[in-house]
C-alpha cells in the first residue's frame, strides 16, 4: 500500500473520530472540560505540536530498538519452544506466564532490579511487543513442511537451523506481516512504559496531560502518534517486501 494512501486513510479515520466526538459534544451540550471544542484543540495544537512531535520521535526510536529486541527474543523462544519436548514446553510456559503478568504488576519488581531510565522503558516495550510475534513464530515453527523437510530429515541433514530456515521461508508472508504489524505493538508498548516508568517520550506527556485532564493535548498526541506510526508501518512493509523479493528471488 503506498505511503500517501496510508496517511490519508489515517487522516480520514482520525477526523471521523474527532467529528464523532464533536457531534456528541454539541448534541449533548458538553463543556470544553469534558470534550474540548475545535478551537481549543487547534490552539493546543499550536502550542504543543513541536514538543509532542519531538516526544513521538523519541518514543519511536525506543520502540524501534524495542521491536528489534522483541522480534529477536520471540524468534529465540519460538525456535527453542517449538518442539514438544520438556524443555520446549518449559520455555513456552515461561514465555506465556511472563506475558500474563500485566506490566503494571511487574513494574515495581523491574524498578527494583533495573532502576528507571531507558533500559526499563526498552524492556517493557519489548515485553509488550514480543508475545504476539512469539505466538506466530511458535505456530509457524511447530508445523513441518514435509515435502521439503523429508529429504533432509532422512539424510540426517535437518539441523535445527535448516528446519527453522525452511519453515520461515515457506511462511515468509505471514512472518513479515506479523513483524511489520508488531511495530504497532512496540509503539504502544513504549508509550505504556513511558506512562508508568519514564520521564521522556510521548507516553510521559500523555500522563501529564491526563493529570491535567486536558483532552485537547491527548487528541494532539493521538494525531501525531497515528501519523508517525503510519509512516513507520509503511516503511516496514516496504522493507518486508524487499526481504521477500531478495530472499525468494521473485
Amino acid at each position, binding site marked *: 500500500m503506498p505511503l500517501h494512501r496510508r496517511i490519508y486513510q489515517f487522516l480520514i479515520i482520525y477526523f471521523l473520530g474527532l467529528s464523532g466526538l464533536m457531534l456528541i459534544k454539541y448534541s449533548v451540550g458538553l463543556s470544553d472540560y469534558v470534550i474540548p471544542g475545535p478551537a481549543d484543540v487547534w490552539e493546543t495544537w499550536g502550542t504543543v505540536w513541536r514538543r509532542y512531535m519531538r516526544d513521538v520521535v523519541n518514543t519511536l526510536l525506543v520502540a524501534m530498538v524495542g521491536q528489534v529486541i522483541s522480534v529477536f527474543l520471540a524468534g529465540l523462544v519460538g525456535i527453542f519452544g517449538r518442539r514438544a519436548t520438556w524443555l520446549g514446553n518449559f520455555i513456552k510456559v515461561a514465555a506465556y506466564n511472563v506475558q500474563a503478568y500485566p506490566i503494571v504488576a511487574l513494574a515495581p519488581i523491574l524498578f527494583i532490579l533495573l532502576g528507571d531510565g531507558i533500559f526499563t522503558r526498552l524492556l517493557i516495550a519489548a515485553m509488550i511487543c514480543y508475545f504476539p510475534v512469539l505466538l506466530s513464530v511458535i505456530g509457524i515453527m511447530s508445523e513441518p513442511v514435509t515435502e521439503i523437510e523429508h*529429504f533432509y530429515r532422512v539424510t540426517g541433514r535437518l539441523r535445527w537451523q535448516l528446519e527453522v530456515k525452511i519453515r520461515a521461508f515457506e511462511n515468509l508472508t505471514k512472518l513479515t506481516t506479523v513483524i511489520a504489524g508488531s511495530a504497532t505493538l512496540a509503539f504502544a508498548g513504549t508509550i505504556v512504559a513511558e506512562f508508568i516508568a519514564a520521564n521522556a517520550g510521548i507516553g510521559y506527556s500523555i500522563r501529564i496531560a491526563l493529570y491535567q485532564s486536558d483532552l485537547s493535548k491527548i487528541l494532539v498526541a493521538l494525531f501525531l502518534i497515528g501519523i508517525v506510526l503510519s509512516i513507520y508501518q509503511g516503511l516496514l512493509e516496504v522493507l518486508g517486501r524487499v526481504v521477500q523479493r531478495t530472499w525468494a528471488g521473485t
Partner: protein
Amino acid sequence: MELRCSELSFTYPGTTIELFDRLSFTMGQPGFHALIGPSGVGKTSLARMITGDITGFSGVLETDGMQGLLYSYNLERLPGWSGVGKHLEKITPPGKHSLRDDLIEVFGIRSVTRARFSQLSLGQQNRVNLIRSLLQDFHLLIMDESLANVDEMTRETILLKIKDLFPDTFFLYISYNVIEVSKFCAGILVFRGPGKSPQAVTVPGQDYRIGRTLDKDRLEGTMLEVMNAAA
C-alpha cells in the same frame, strides 16, 4: 543384503478394508526392481512401510543389512531461497562432485541450475529431486513415480544411466508403465487387483542396460506375463 516381506497385513486406522492381507515377496539381489499395480492398490503404502514411515502392520518386513533407505516421491520440493544448482551443491557429499556434474548433464537440467525450484517445470523438478537422492549414500532407493512427469526419452536415458552407475544397489521403481518396467527391471512385483490371491506375484524382467541387447519377443513375453498377472 536382501529385502524380504512375509505375511504382511495392514489396515489403515479408521478404515475397514484390509490393504494388505498376508503379502509376501522377496528381492534377493541388488538391481532394478519394479512395483507395479493399479492406482490405490497400496504401492506407496508399502514403500513407506519399508522406509519405516508407516508402522503398525503385522508380519515381517526385513531390510537385511541395508544402510540408508531412501524414499523419493514426485511431490518433494527444494527450498526456495537459492537456485537448485546451489542446493545440489550443498547436499553433495565429499568426493561426489563429479558424479553430481555427470548426473546434471545426463538428466538434462544443466540449463536450469540457476533457477529456483518453483520456476522449474514439473519434469525438471522430478529430475532434480532424483539427482539429490542419487548423490546420497544408500543401499535402497525407492522411486515412487519419481519420473512420472518426465518425458519418455529423457526417462530412458536416466534409467540407463542409473543402472550403469549403481549396479550394486537396490532400486524399487514404482511406475505404471508396463513396457518400461518390463524392459528395465530385473524383477517386477505385480500387485493384482482387489480380492485376488495372492495379492502380488513376482515376474522376472528383461533388465535391459547399456551394452546389452534387447530381445523384442522376450520383452513382449514379459509384458504379457505382467498383464496376465495383473488381470
